[in-house]
């Protein structure tokens, strides 16, 4: 039985707390009285995941028939799946998607279905490379489908292959991948890493177009998603649910959702998911060895070491059937692993940002992604109210180098150099610059033909932090490159102690402090 997450109150005997810090770590002594939120230990995985998948497909939830009875010869079947933005880090083989799709394909073959297409639902994300696809799906699926053009990556700018399904009562365009919506059955396979994912959001972001996305990927929407990790209180989800229901009326959808436990790091990094006072001699030794050797390694090499990490996360649940019924179960299963009750808000929220977020698998966590990971994802890992009070301070720890991946994030470079040089206000940015980046032919060319995120994606990164920007009084980045940190309107600090002193100027002396010990991921249930 795994132990639940909990809140530790720091006293004199508390050892230094581990902060993630990009491709490295820091041990920080937090002032007595500070609180540290620890995630739950990984819950027990399914003993027989394949059996559980089969069981879920045969016993769907909600208004749905078992999968085999939905399959018949001569039908047009499309299987869409989450892209490699989840899980993080990428999981050790076999990936949930490989397991599920192999079983689905077996059933389809048994039913004599021969028109099957796989679509990686990567929305405006970059295309995945062949090795990345092989890792996610396994060689068997890849070799059977890719050479025949039956494994495709959604192209949100291929207007010949997009269809406007309709518009919601609110006027939202539901424009999606043509193959998916003209199929007799659309199966969506997901890996539900956090509560933001899954449900109708899967199709509405994964296989839609910019025209569709901008109804929920915008500043106002994000400012009214409190948080976007809590679907009932999220404008992002309100919109995608409206649009998803419209789609569900137009095409038969069979949703398959899976959850994972938080066994995030392989054994050589196991100290990352232990509580510091419980570190064994071996943990201490491997921490020392790891952080010492990282100090002497150029960032580039450190990056490739970290991006080689494949996580041992394992499947904890699988549910299939009608989208909303499936997702309700998924959330329950997620909460079982993620929820940690926290009482009250703090003046200062501290967090250590790791090397990886959803948008830099095999890439660089550039400054914009640092902002998005800290103020977007980590800040929003709450239900109820934010961990930090209104007007409080967020202190993040990350090297925040002025570095960008020129192939993956070309529009980010220009966003950072041109847009942020002018303003950091999300509303103004959206109004003044979004359209031109979104419709820029060069970015579209790179998105479609190279391995680049869409031109507008950099904006979404900034919007993802819009709620936090509106809520907090100051953002400080410990150890960040001052030039890059200032460009985003934040303050650089060289040590946590300095940062806390700077924070006092905003929130007053002796502030209350909450640190989130994340990853492994949790969701704070703040009352």
């Amino acid at each position: 039985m795994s132990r639940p997450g909990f809140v530790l109150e720091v006293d004199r005997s508390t050892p230094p707390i581990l902060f993630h810090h990009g491709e490295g770590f820091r041990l920080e002594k937090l002032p007595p009285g500070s609180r540290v939120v620890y995630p739950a230990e990984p819950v027990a995985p399914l003993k027989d995941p394949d059996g559980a998948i089969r069981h879920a497909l045969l016993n769907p939830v909600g208004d749905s028939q078992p999968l085999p009875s939905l399959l018949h010869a001569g039908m047009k079947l499309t299987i869409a799946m989450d892209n490699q933005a989840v899980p993080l880090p990428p999981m050790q083989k076999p990936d949930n998607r490989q397991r599920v799709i192999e079983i689905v394909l077996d059933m389809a073959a048994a039913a004599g279905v021969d028109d099957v297409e796989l679509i990686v639902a990567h929305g405006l994300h970059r295309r995945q490379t062949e090795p990345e696809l092989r890792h996610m799906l396994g060689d068997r699926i890849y070799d059977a489908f890719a050479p025949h053009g039956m494994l495709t990556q959604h192209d949100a700018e291929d207007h010949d292959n997009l269809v406007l399904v309709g518009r919601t009562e609110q006027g939202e365009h539901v424009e999606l991948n043509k193959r998916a919506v003209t199929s007799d059955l659309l199966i969506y396979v997901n890996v539900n890493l956090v509560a933001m994912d899954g449900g109708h959001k899967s199709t509405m972001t994964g296989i839609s177009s910019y025209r569709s996305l901008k109804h929920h990927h915008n500043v106002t929407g994000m400012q009214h998603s409190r948080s976007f990790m809590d679907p009932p209180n999220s404008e992002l989800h309100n919109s995608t649910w409206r649009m998803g229901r419209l789609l569900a009326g137009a095409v038969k959808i069979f949703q398959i959702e899976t959850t994972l436990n938080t066994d995030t790091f392989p054994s050589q990094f196991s100290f990352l998911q232990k509580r510091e006072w419980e570190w064994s001699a071996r943990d201490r030794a491997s921490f020392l060895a790891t952080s010492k050797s990282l100090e002497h390694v150029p960032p580039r090499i450190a990056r490739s070491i970290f991006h080689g990490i494949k996580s041992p996360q394992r499947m904890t649940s699988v549910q299939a059937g009608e989208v909303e019924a499936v997702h309700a179960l998924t959330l329950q299963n997620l909460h079982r692993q993620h929820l940690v009750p926290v009482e009250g808000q703090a003046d200062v929220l501290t967090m250590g940002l790791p090397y990886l977020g959803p948008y830099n698998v095999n890439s660089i966590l550039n400054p914009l992604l640092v902002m998005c990971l800290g103020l977007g994802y980590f800040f929003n890992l709450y239900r109820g109210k934010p961990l930090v009070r209104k007007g409080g301070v967020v202190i993040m720890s990350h090297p925040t180098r002025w570095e960008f991946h020129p192939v993956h994030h070309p529009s980010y470079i220009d966003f950072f150099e041109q847009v942020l040089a002018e303003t950091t206000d999300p509303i103004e940015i959206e109004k003044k610059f979004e359209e031109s980046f979104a419709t820029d032919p060069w970015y579209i060319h790179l998105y479609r033909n190279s391995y680049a995120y869409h031109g507008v994606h950099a904006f979404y990164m900034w919007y993802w932090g819009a709620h936090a920007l509106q809520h907090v009084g100051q953002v400080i980045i410990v150890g960040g490159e001052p030039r890059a940190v200032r460009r985003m309107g934040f303050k650089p600090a060289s040590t946590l102690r300095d940062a806390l002193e700077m924070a006092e100027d905003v929130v007053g002396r002796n502030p209350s402090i909450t640190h989130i010990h994340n990853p492994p991921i949790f969701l704070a249930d703040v009352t």
Partner: protein
Amino acid sequence: MIAEVLAGKRIAITGSTGFLGTALVERLLRSVPGCELVLIVRAGRRTTPLARAKREIFGNDAFRTLRAQLGDGFDAEIARRVQVVAGDVSVDGLGLDAEAAALVASCDTVIHSAAIVSFDSPIDVAAEVNLLGPVRVAELLRDAGSAAHLVAVSTAYVAGTRRGRAAEAALGDTPFSTEVDWRSEIAAARRARADADAASRDPEQLAIFGKEARKELGAAGPPLLAAKTEKRREKWVADRLVEAGRSRAKSLGWPDAYAYTKALAERAVLEVRGHVPVTVVRPSIIESAWAEPHPGWIRGFRMAEPVLISYGRGLLSEFPGIPEGVVDVIPVDIVVATIITVAAKGPEPDGHGVYQVATGNRNPLYYRNLVNLVREYFLDNPLYDSDGQPIVAPDWSFSGRGKALRKLQRGVKALGQAESLVASLPIRGKRAEITARLEERRDQGERALDYVRLYGAYAETEALFDDTRLRSLWDAMAPEDQAVFNLDTNVVDWRHYVQVIHLPSVVRQARVRTTGGVREGPNRYERGKRSILSPDRHIAAFDLENTLIASNVVESYSFLASRRLPDDERARFTLDMLRQGPGLLALDRRDRGDFLRHFYRRYEGAPADRVRADAWELFSLLLTKSFPAGIRRVREHRALGHRTLLITGALDFVVEPLRPLFDDVVCARLVERGGLLTGEMVDAPPTGEARAIVIADYAAAEGLSLAESVVYADSASDLPMLEAVGHPVAVNAEPKLAAIARKRGWHIEQWTKAPGAPVPILPLAPRGHRATGDDLPRPGLSGRHQLGRA
């Protein structure tokens, strides 16, 4: 009264566009209202003598007072009193037509002030103008039977390098005068030109010029190199003749070719003058005006000015001179007044006379005193460097000429060596700018060296120029004339003259920084960028390699060739490419076109479709090595409506993914036969001067203006293309181009790869990229046809 004596008189002047001539014309027009002037002016390269006179004489600031006096009547007054005739003192008969010759001959006075003042002109040019010039004027007047009085401006330094008193008399009448036949000197000077020219055409010599041109420009292509080679040859000939002049003058006891030719001219004129009365006026070093037309008026950068400014800028502290020696400086207005007074007085009774206009005798300016005054001035009014910091004028060391020269020579030599070392290093961009800085420093050093060589003698002269006759002239003048035409050198207060009159005027002319602090407004880079990104521009053409992308054709090939190789063959391939690297690099440096032709043969036998498909994977490598600021710049040009053009020797399939960035792409293409590439190019690749033609043709076809176009390139081999447009931009320039760009004031960009971009150590396709689909052939590995064997 001088004005009355000269009223109704007609005065011809040569050299009126010069410093002294302009002052003379102004003074005559303003202070002798009754006289008429005939100006003998050489036609400019594209301008008539009249237009030249209007711009260069009457447009000068000297006429400020007269313009104010006459108001709108100025032009009418000039038209009424001044006739401009085309003529050239370096041509027999002064190049005058019959009418003009008659007009000149009809004058009452002819003032010959035309000369090459430069102390380092080639011997034949100096002889032609300085020696034969006055001879021709005298002959013209003699042959025409003219009654005119010839006033010839010479120099006090005709006395030569000597100590003691220099007499105010004809040279033949003075002791220690060197006897040489001026006619044979002229013949020798002309011969020297022919000899130097012949020697410069010697094959070995031509090879040296070619090598030098190559060293400076790199692989800039035959036409540019040829032009540069010819320039080097011409310069070599000129240098030889300068040296010939200098050494001939020295051998005869004159400091330089100027004094030497002037001295011979004085003798020659007396010999050929016949009945023509000649008066010689010998000023010493003419500097800015004491009072007329206004204090501090000066024209052009003269002898002492560059030295003074160099000192103020802290570049020069080693100007040789004897502290107790006299620097004989004379304000221009005193010389002008002397000439006018002499003209009014008329010829000497015996037909020839000499006046020396110098200060050394009565009102000497000692070298030590001058140096102190200058130093004081610059300490109180410092010049500022480019960072807005004041420059402290250095302590002056009164070293001997030999020591100063040796020190400067050592410095220049060391800088030259450092420069050629750096230029040969494979660096570019910011680091390459070090050559430009070294070159600038060496230029400054060389200039200082020139000053010392040229002018050193003038600060070391220990001669005292007798001015007794000038004094008697002054004493004999009516008080009213004395009030208007000052010949008295005693009025000059040197402290006032140096610190209040001369230096401020010089500093103003030199356009150096005289205020400190950071300048307001956009800096040079921003101004350059703004001008390049003006909506008025037409074409923005880009080179590819090292301008937009830090990659090259060898890398592209390696990637494409290795993409489908199994591991063991990849290793062999890698070693093979590494081994060939230096040879390929050398070939590329020699001739880009040959290199491409040679290298692209490696694609022989490669399946075209597969190469084209793989090139899309190569795109990632190109983007990884691209300069985001460069890509952004292309897009900025496009957004402004400029035509964007990529001109590259890279292959079409390699640049295909970049095509959406540009309106048009000019690149190399390979012949395809039966689905395979042959390794031969469809047409000549756009390299070197061919690129200049490409962009010129493109502009012509589209009706766009090259003057309004921008070219971005990184290497000296792109010079023809860069020079073809009005707005060249050097991007991450290699040393040679960096030096050229800096010298010519081109806009310079330093673009870098995206910081943090992954660095592929070898340009090989990433492993794990397995061929998709088994229908594609597997390339074998043998020789240079890795891509080819199916």
